[in-house]
């Protein structure tokens, strides 16, 4: 008899991460023999320790890091939390800004799903295995090249952060709501296409092949043979993307696209901190509602109601999606015609002409490599801080049976702090940290660490809460103290999970370094901001290429690490 499998982890944020982790888990070659993975663990642990040490040293090192003159400002910001601006006019403004951010997220997600479905089919093996050749082996030989090309084609839009897309589109389209929608739809569409392709290829192929053999044609065979079974998983992923889109839409506001992020930046610049807290609250409520909705839909898709009855939650969600889509479109008054207006075409051609061929910036290779290392160090230091702090926070706030009222109160407060940590978008966090730290990689690392601490603390707490209680209770009942039982029964089981979450967030964070860099926190993101300001698009191409390469390298290192932990 083996120990029972860990119960499914629930809750909004966790749903999101679990979703990704699950997708990873059953695709990412989980079949590594146990013995081999254990023997590999040592080198990975040593490498991690060295990387963390070097990164922290690199990020913290340097003279004057703390700007003591900024403390009063930070204190003022924190004190303003007690008196958010609740005047009628500002609440109306907040409501409009929230609607704008929501509309970006809704239309961006819908756009990414359209791209995802088309691109997903085009990037699936199933599609390219169904070329006209008679024998299956020949068919695949013919289709394989196309399949690889489609995969590579999707990697580039995916590697560029949505904030950078936003800035590029801003240069071409000007201040148009379409900027934010496309900045979400393009990179998310590419990610979605990759995931959808994998979902399609995971379906049992028999029906699809039978339809092909019966001469049903490629498109119809996919439509009837693969899509119906893949649909629940695809819908579930679509909702996960929506939750991400809300946060992305807020960040896009900060780079100039309007909505909550834009108002946040304005209030920040005019030192109206009480307004910032109102806006942050609106952001928390909006993304919380999206998380809640997504979690309900996912739960329903996992355990459908008995057949032949309409599921009320899913039906209502469908109506809500259509309604939100229409509302968003009218609210933003989108005009797709902007895309082929002579001005946009002219600016676009001009930008592309100047961006190609790429060129090194004035600093040459040395600067590029230096900034790349700084970016990696920033992400590693941030994650080390976030994972360590998150683990401590998780132990403090996890809801355990049999805790006293004082513990529970402290736990509730702690969860509130974590909520604020993950609600403040990293660029806003970086601006705040820049009050008290001089520009450089350190404020970026701190901002990213605080944001991820909010996510990881919550996630780790839930994974503690969901541990099977049997082993701990068994040790308690044989006379062990609470802390000894915790040390033996909980820590070993939680540790591997915590580490895996940390690595997963690292892969996300390397992409996020660019947004804290945009506000001046260092790394390649700062170079992006400077090159954009100087219209040096040829150098920008090089910087973006370096970011894409870093992302790919971190993904590779991350999947190796996660295999070693498992």
């Amino acid at each position: 008899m083996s120990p029972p499998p860990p119960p499914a982890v629930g809750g909004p944020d966790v749903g999101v991460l679990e979703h990704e982790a699950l997708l990873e888990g059953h695709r990412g070659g989980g079949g590594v023999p146990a013995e081999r993975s254990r023997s590999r663990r040592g080198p990975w642990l040593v490498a991690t320790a060295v990387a963390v040490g070097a990164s922290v040293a690199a990020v913290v090192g340097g003279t004057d890091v703390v700007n003591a003159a900024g403390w009063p400002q930070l204190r003022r910001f924190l004190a303003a939390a007690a008196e958010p601006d609740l005047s009628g006019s500002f609440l109306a403004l907040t409501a409009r800004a929230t609607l704008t951010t929501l509309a970006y997220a809704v239309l961006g997600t819908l756009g990414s799903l359209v791209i995802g479905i088309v691109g997903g089919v085009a990037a699936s093996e199933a599609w390219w295995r169904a070329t006209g050749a008679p024998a299956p082996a020949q068919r695949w030989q013919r289709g394989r090249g196309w399949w690889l090309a489609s995969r590579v084609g999707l990697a580039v839009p995916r590697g560029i952060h949505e904030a950078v897309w936003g800035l590029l589109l801003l240069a071409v389209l000007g201040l148009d709501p379409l900027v934010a929608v496309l900045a979400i739809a393009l990179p998310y569409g590419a990610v979605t296409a990759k995931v959808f392709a994998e979902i399609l290829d995971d379906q049992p192929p028999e029906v699809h092949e039978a339809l092909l053999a019966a001469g049903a044609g490629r498109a119809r065979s996919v439509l009837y043979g693969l899509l119906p079974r893949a649909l629940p998983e695809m819908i579930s992923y679509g909702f996960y993307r929506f939750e991400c889109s809300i946060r992305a839409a807020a960040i896009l506001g900060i780079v100039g696209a309007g909505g909550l992020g834009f108002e946040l930046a304005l209030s920040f610049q005019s030192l109206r901190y009480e307004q910032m807290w109102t806006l942050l609250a609106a952001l928390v409520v909006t993304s919380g509602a999206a998380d809640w909705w997504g979690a309900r839909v996912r739960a329903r898709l996992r355990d459908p109601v008995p057949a032949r009855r309409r599921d009320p939650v899913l039906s209502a969600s469908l109506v809500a999606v259509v309604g939100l889509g229409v509302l968003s479109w009218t609210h933003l008054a989108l005009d797709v015609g902007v895309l082929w207006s002579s001005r946009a075409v002219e600016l676009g051609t001009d930008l592309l002409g100047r961006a190609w061929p790429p060129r090194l910036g004035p600093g040459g290779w040395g600067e590029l490599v230096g900034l790349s290392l700084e970016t990696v160090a920033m992400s590693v230091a941030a994650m080390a801080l976030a994972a360590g702090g998150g683990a401590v926070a998780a132990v403090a706030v996890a809801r355990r049976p049999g805790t006293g009222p004082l513990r529970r109160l402290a736990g509730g407060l702690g969860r509130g702090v974590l909520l604020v940590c993950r609600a403040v978008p990293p660029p806003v966090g970086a601006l705040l940290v820049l009050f008290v730290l001089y520009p450089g990689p350190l404020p970026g690392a701190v901002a990213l660490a605080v944001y991820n601490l909010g996510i990881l603390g919550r996630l780790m707490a839930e994974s503690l809460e969901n541990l099977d209680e049997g082993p701990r209770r068994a040790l308690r009942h044989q006379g062990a103290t609470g802390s000894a039982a915790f040390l033996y029964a909980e820590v070993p089981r939680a540790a591997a999970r915590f580490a895996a979450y940390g690595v997963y967030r690292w892969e996300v964070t390397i992409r996020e370094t660019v947004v804290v860099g945009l506000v001046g926190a260092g790394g390649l993101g700062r170079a992006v901001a400077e090159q954009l300001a100087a219209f040096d698009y040829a150098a920008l191409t090089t910087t973006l290429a370096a970011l894409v390469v870093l992302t790919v390298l971190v993904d590779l290192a991350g999947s190796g690490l996660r295999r070693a932990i498992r």
Partner: protein
Amino acid sequence: MTGPPALAVLGGVTVRFGSRTALEGVDLRLVAGERVAVIGSSGAGKTTLLGVLNGSVAPTVGTVRLLGEDPAALGARARRELQRQIGTVYQQLHLVGPLRVIHNVNAGRLGHWSLARAAASLLRPREAEGALDALARMGIGDRAHDRTERLSGGQQQRVALARVLVQDPRLVLADEPVSALDPLRAREVVDLLTGMAAGSGRGVVVSVHRIELAGAGFDRVVGLRAGRVVLDGPPGALTPERVAELYALDPAPR
């Protein structure tokens, strides 16, 4: 009064969980060195009875004396000292999968160790000889440094037995320890458990739902039906009629 000391004395114990009655008016006296099999169909109250015997379930009505003490009346520290004298093997084993076998065995010593010692032991096992000896007695001395979740179900069972052995309690309780094992393995595990009583004055209580395991090796059989003790005597008293009565379908409403 002479004879071996009493390990547990239950007087008129009734346990209710909400509206469900799990045990009803149970009187039971266990003495040192006794080897007791508890039998009964599932839902008869076997797990609850063992819970009362290790102090984790408090009676709704009635009195409980474990090693002469009333567990409900003890402070946290005294209660832990009592509980470390009582070892339990669970049906689900409750081992910690990612820990190495030797640490799972040493977890049996946690009631005796300080927190600092417990933490240090995770880096470099303390009292390793005792743990290795217990594992050898259970027949898996060679697996001490493997991760516990890599062991087979039968081997994990033996780790759980080794854990209770190093705990060195005066009373060993085992809740359905063999329900997941084939008959041959089940016999071996029951023999290992009853063997723990030999020469040590330790009491051993094993609940089994397969009647044929309750014979050899036990001094006494306690039969439960719908929360009541309906049979209490030597294994020889297990006549087919008594057994049929014990397992007869219960007409009582659920």
